[in-house]
């Protein structure tokens, strides 16, 4: 809930009209690029130098399932954009409707991931299975944790909207910042979907 970690300086004049929280979030996302860059590149490096590590005849990935969860995440991003837009217009009911949708879709995505992990473990891919298991689970797991944090954040916002303390101006920024975070989680998945799942598949 980093949006709350602020204090306002109503007297301060800002040379550029960017909200502090928004700038902070964008910086965090820039930093997160390095964060996920490290994880994804670790995975790719080990795929490159240990290409025969997993049995190529076993079809580990179910592309249909992953495409479905990618779709779900993209749609949640769409709803999040609508929620932010609604908040800017001060339509709190529309905001609630959309946010509930985002939370729901996010939970479906997490559910898919849990299902996928369980399947993989049954197929014999564990955390300590060579480097593939290590990098795959740490990478997708970290992404999953990001999704979970996002869901928790949005649930808090949803309930907070009933306290009547939200207003169109300041809370819109808070919602927008949460939205930025959510979209970023989405674009990270776009990359992971392509470089980890699809390209792995055509490499077979």
């Amino acid at each position: 809930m980093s949006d709350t970690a602020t204090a306002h300086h109503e007297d301060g004049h800002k040379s550029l009209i960017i909200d502090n929280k928004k700038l902070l979030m964008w910086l965090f996302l820039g930093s997160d690029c390095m964060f996920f860059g490290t994880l994804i590149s670790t995975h790719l490096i080990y795929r490159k130098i240990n290409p025969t590590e997993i049995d190529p005849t076993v079809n580990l990935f179910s592309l249909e399932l992953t495409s479905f969860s990618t779709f779900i995440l993209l749609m949640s991003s769409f709803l999040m954009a609508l929620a932010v837009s609604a908040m800017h217009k001060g339509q709190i009911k529309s905001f609630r409707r959309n946010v509930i949708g985002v939370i729901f879709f996010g939970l479906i995505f997490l559910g898919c991931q849990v299902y996928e992990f369980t399947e993989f473990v049954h197929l014999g891919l564990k955390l300590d299975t060579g480097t593939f298991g290590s990098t795959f689970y740490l990478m997708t797991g970290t992404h999953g944790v990001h999704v979970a944090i996002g869901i928790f954040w949005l649930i808090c916002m949803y309930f907070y909207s009933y306290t009547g303390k939200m207003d169109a101006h300041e809370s819109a920024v808070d919602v927008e910042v949460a939205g930025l975070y959510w979209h970023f989680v989405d674009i990270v998945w776009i990359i992971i979907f392509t470089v980890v799942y699809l390209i792995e598949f055509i490499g077979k």
Partner: protein
Amino acid sequence: MSTTVTETHETSTHYGSHVLKPERSNLGLMRPDHGKSVLIDWLTTVDHKKIGIMYGVIALFFLLVGGVEALVIRTQLAFPENDLISAQRYNQLFTMHGTTMIFLAIMPLNAAFFNFLVPLQIGARDVAFPRINSFSLWAFVAGALVINFGWFLQLLEVMGLFTASGPTAGMNDLVPSMGWFGYAPITGIEFTGAGTDFWIMGLQILGIASLSAAMNFVVTIINMRAVGMKMMRLPVFTWMTLIVSLLIVFAFPAITIALAELMFDRVFGTNFFVTAGGGQPILWQHLFWIFGHPEVYILVLPAMGIVSEVLPAFSKKPLFGYAIVVFSGAVIGFLGFAVWSHHMFTTGLGKVATAAFSLLTMAIAVPTGVKIFNWVGTLWGGRVRFSAPMIFALGFVWMFMMGGFSGIMHSSAPADAQQQDSYFVIAHFHYVAIGGIFLAVVSGIYFWLPKICGKMWKGNLSLWVAIFSTVGLNVTFFPMHFLGLLGMPRRTHTYLEGFGWETYNLVCTIGAYILAFGIFLLVVDIIRCLRSGEPAGDDPWDARTLEWTTTSPPQVYNFARNPIIPARDALWEHKHGPENRKITYEPDDGHGIHMPSQSWMPMIASLGFVPLGLGLSMMQAGVAYMGYVAIFGLLMISLGVALWALEGPGGYHLHPEEEN
């Protein structure tokens, strides 16, 4: 959740002094505001100046700790085949010396200057997120405690009050002993014990502290500038803060993930750096230096910023080529991400990669050289006044040049094959670290101490500090160039007689004691200043930047009215420039100055890292019940953050007496 809606402004009362009625937060709790007790005031403060001072004091303490570690190391090496301390103890000392100096002394010293100066230099009341600032400070303290906790356990063990148990107990290394670089696989579970876990968790916590502080500063510098303070009017120190903060923001995630991967290797048996499972230990080196090389600039750029403030002030001239200095700082920062592998020339990168990194490393010498040219250019035609800050700044330029030149020698990869991991490298980076960063920081201390405490240091003791530290530094580290070229490798706890290293080592050790005496004098001088310095006045140096327009020490609100900045070197132009370049002030809108309320929550949240970090580390080492301690820490963090979110930012208004 939201932050602003509930602000209760019952405060149009006129407060002449700082005594305030504590106000209740949204939770119905008393806010720990001014006037209760000095201790609570400091613990819960969100004032960037107090936070800066605390950073500085803690960092100086760790500078002394790291210095003592270095002295023991040097004493052990004074004679061949010396057995003052065991190999293991030596390894612990050099590991902790490096870690302490980098993460617990230099970085927080820089943070101390950032905190104290940046808002003052840009004409702001505070940083953008005062409570995150407080969180960063206490998270840094938490990380420092976790990383040094091993010493405490080792002490208990020596006294017979504690025995390690569990899988790594036999190793008996409670203090990190794998080097500050922690090259895999020596950090693996089969080679090192609990010390490595403390190190991993400590660094992770320090990373969180640095990241939150850095993002805060970027937002502060971009968003909180006073009217008219355009980017190209920022003081160079603030520019360097901005660049350093961006470097931290973009470099730290690499080490965060690397540490997480290492932790997974140790705890969950993953294979990131385990050869038997297909892992490549070399990957750690890459990830470490992707962080580690920008880290070098994170350490040194603030020093360049300090010197770029001191030299103009004592030459009565603007910085020569301001734009180019700023630009070269940015280029150094950016190129700093492209040269990490020059720390790895001996790891068999292959011809092409070695050549590429060799050339890029030479390229980075150009913007660094540019800065030196500009400092010389600043002196040229000026009127050089030899006061203590200036003497240290002049010493910095000379010593930094020497460190820089041995750096160029490293850039030639084949020559580096002889220098890498020898004492030559130690000489190189200590010239940069002590001759560069330390002298600049001392220069900064003498320059801004009058502003920080309102008192002027006195007498010529500062000159003796300069003499002892500079002489000590050269006597210690100059012979090390030769030691390295005569084949003495680094990180060896002892050496055989007959290799021609004996005299050099003895000289180095003597030098280390001279240097230590210099630092001791520095501490004495600072204490003397605090105890019995004369009032310094607002602008004792006839200086150039905005921080000298406020009182010494500055009021809690920094500026009674917000300044409007007409030019670069605002104060100088105000004093000596034409009439249209005076600093003006915004009109009083009658609402008073909005001040943020103080809070316990950032401290509670960040100190939760102590049980979390210690619990996780010791759980790994097999100590009983540590899992619960870790969970307690996690709960403490969550609780702190949740209450922080719910208490609301609060705030009150101050109405300073009109004095200007």
